[in-house]
């Protein structure tokens, strides 16, 4: 049959990728963000003589390690097109549960299990409401945010739990070697694990596809509900782990613990280049964003800038880093036209 009346041109081989690996890397958001981190580092070391000190820098990491642990899981959730605003409340509830258990004389391994278990239980609640009942996650997790923290307030009132066993202090105050804290080690380990999970596993690919087009994912045999449930569970788990670290570092639990962290975690994720609309982002970006936020707050702290002013700086930083690449692209387009 006359499928085509012209001779079929020799089949061209389509290249796998365009450009060199180097050109692809240089154009990325992560490189830009890394540049920002370096600038802040230089600015800090010029502004304060105390900044370039190994122990001071080590202290600075505590500003972001716990939040970053949650941010890794949150990044996956946001990439999949969902969000969990209850993470800080999960930390509070997990911390309260650990506090109560410590009062009852539970030892360190039991406390860790209770903290992580509470996180998983909260994640299960969120995951069930979103994936089984198909409710929008932003509404569900605003609801559970009040619910989880409300339970903490009922349990504690204006009291505080203290009296944790001495060995429990290691998670938030211990050091692996020299200036490298346990928390920082955990941060690096989780960064690596989440990077593998998102970028090198089938599960991570499914997360990416769901965020880009949930219909297409469903029509391609991706178990969308199951993936979402696992993501909420994972976020609960990481919140539980963050609760263990934070409680251990502070040595006490108040119901207001980790207040407002959900927004800082989301900011970290978005600053790391994860699209708030879902579908794209990298763990490397979140890692660099964690450093940027940690360096900024710590540098300002060394300069005795009050906390309220600091939050203004963080907000400005977020707006500038989001606006820069968009403006750059617009200018480039205008010049081409």
């Amino acid at each position: 049959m006359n499928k085509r009346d012209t001779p079929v041109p020799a089949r061209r081989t389509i290249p796998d990728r365009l450009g060199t690996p180097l050109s692809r890397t240089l154009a990325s958001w992560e490189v830009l963000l890394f540049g920002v981190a370096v600038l802040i580092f230089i600015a800090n070391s010029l502004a304060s003589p105390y900044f370039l000190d190994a122990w001071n820098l080590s202290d600075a990491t505590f500003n972001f390690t716990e939040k970053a642990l949650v941010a890794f899981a949150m990044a996956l959730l946001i990439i999949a097109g969902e969000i969990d605003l209850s993470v800080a409340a999960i930390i509070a509830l997990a911390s309260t549960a650990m506090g109560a258990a410590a009062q009852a004389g539970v030892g360190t391994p039991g406390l860790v299990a209770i903290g992580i278990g509470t996180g998983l239980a909260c994640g299960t609640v969120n995951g069930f409401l979103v994936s089984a009942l198909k409710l929008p996650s932003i509404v569900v997790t605003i609801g559970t945010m009040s619910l989880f923290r409300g339970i903490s307030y009922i349990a504690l009132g204006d009291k505080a739990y203290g009296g944790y066993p001495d060995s429990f202090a290691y998670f938030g105050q211990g050091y692996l070697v020299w200036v490298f804290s346990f928390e920082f080690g955990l941060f690096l380990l989780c960064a690596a694990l989440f990077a593998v999970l998102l970028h090198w596993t089938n599960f991570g690919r499914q997360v990416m596809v769901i965020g880009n087009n949930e219909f297409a994912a469903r029509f391609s045999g991706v178990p969308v509900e199951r993936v979402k449930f696992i993501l909420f569970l994972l976020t609960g788990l990481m919140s539980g782990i963050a609760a263990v670290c934070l409680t251990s570092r502070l040595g006490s639990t108040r119901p207001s613990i980790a207040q407002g962290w959900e927004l800082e975690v989301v900011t970290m994720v978005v600053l790391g280049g994860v699209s708030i609309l879902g579908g794209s982002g990298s763990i490397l970006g979140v890692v660099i964003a964690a450093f940027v936020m940690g360096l900024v707050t710590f540098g300002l702290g060394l300069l005795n800038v009050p906390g309220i002013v600091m939050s203004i700086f963080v907000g400005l930083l977020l707006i500038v880093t989001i606006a820069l690449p968009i403006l750059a692209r617009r200018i480039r387009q205008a010049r081409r036209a």
Partner: protein
Amino acid sequence: MVKTTMNAVAPMTVIESRGAQKPLLEMRGISQIFPGVKALDQVSIALYPGEVTALIGENGAGKSTLVKILTGIYRPNEGEILLDGQPVQFASAQAAIDAGVTAIHQETVLFDELTVGENIFLGHAPRGRFGTIDWRTIHARSRELLRQLESEIDPTIRLKDLSIAQRHLVAIARALSVEARIVIMDEPTAALSRKEIDDLFRIVEGLKRQGKAILFISHKFDEVYEIAENFAVFRDGKAVGQGRLKGTPQADIVRLMVGRDVYDVFPKIKVEIGQTVLSVENYCHPTEFNDISFDLKRGEILGVYGLIGAGRSELCQSLFGITRPSSGRLTLEGNRIEIRSSAEAIAAGIVYVPEERGRHGLALPMPIFQNMSLPSLARTSRSGLLNAANELKLARQYAERLDLRAAALSVPVGTLSGGNQQKVVIGKWLATQPKVIILDEPTKGIDIGSKAAVHGFISELASQGLSIIMVSSELPEILGMSDRVMVMREGLQAGIFERAEASAEVLVRAATGNA
């Protein structure tokens, strides 16, 4: 990519003397230049009162650009527009409306949550004494406009409660709610069934009688011949021919349009039909379809024809595990199976190429190879870890088999043309090595050159022993490609016809239930 036979047909311009009749609107020497592209190059076209001019051209020929100039969205770099012989300039969309140009777009912009009346008069609602919206006039005039279109839709109901065809009428009513003399219809039949198209054409005839000049853009030649008096063919931003349709053979227009000869015979390969692969018995759905039974054999193409809303896509989606049937039996290669999810369907060897590629078939911002490998990840990966080299290999294999045109396998699918996107969807499913492939409107929105490639490929698949279910609203496609045709009407099976007994008449009669 160079079309080697591009110049095989000399650009010709048929200009006929039109006696005393003067055009209502004329565009002369219009050029529209975008950075890097000349979207329109010295184009001239004339629209006459009481006549339909069909604008024909492949995707990217410049049709939409012309519409945007006429509706005041783009200002051309060169050329002039004459209205009643007087030069005019459409400085804004409002200026075009004031001049009496109105457009019914390909994808109509209407608002589901607003009422019919609000949709019709949005932006130009009649005002009452205190500047408040005059609802009584809106409803009365809406009713009147809809009655002109032979419809009794209540203007106070919300748009979301209407059928697709009724929404279309509302869109037309909206276009006519301004004092329009020139009506542009941009692929108005794309989403309509044959019966609805007939209704639309009656409306167009009515508009003609009112002396309106109509610019009708369509891919479908049978429709163009049915409704239009004049034609204008665009190719690569140039007007390559225009004239009276009467006496111009379709083959000439096709040749003008694509700049080369195109197949007019469907590339159906004679295939030895084998054993029954899939048999569907008494398939039922609570609302969409009821009691569907058919067999599908190896190497067979079963066409599924019916009007919009006949339950065809719903049937296919339930075979693919997206929706659950309420009852019925499914047998695949002699084994009773049950499909509860699309993952199970894929595992069983049944795959589905959805009608809405962009919405259901592809993650457009993601690379070609990642879209292609998605349902086959279990094969390209090892213990859950991705292997990009394997994915690229798989993608390359099917990209070459399908003659995919892309800059690289890592570019986002969204950067490809419709035809190439469809190749990615088909390739993604072939990579799962299916037994049954369900194609839902496989050539919808694809230009005629790529259509031939898709058809050729479907035939080839059947000849390789795949069983194919092909849902289509295009009769030539159904008649040209199918070994048997199942017709559905309002969720019921209206008959199964062998290739020899299936004719356009028989199928339409079965689909509409008209004797």
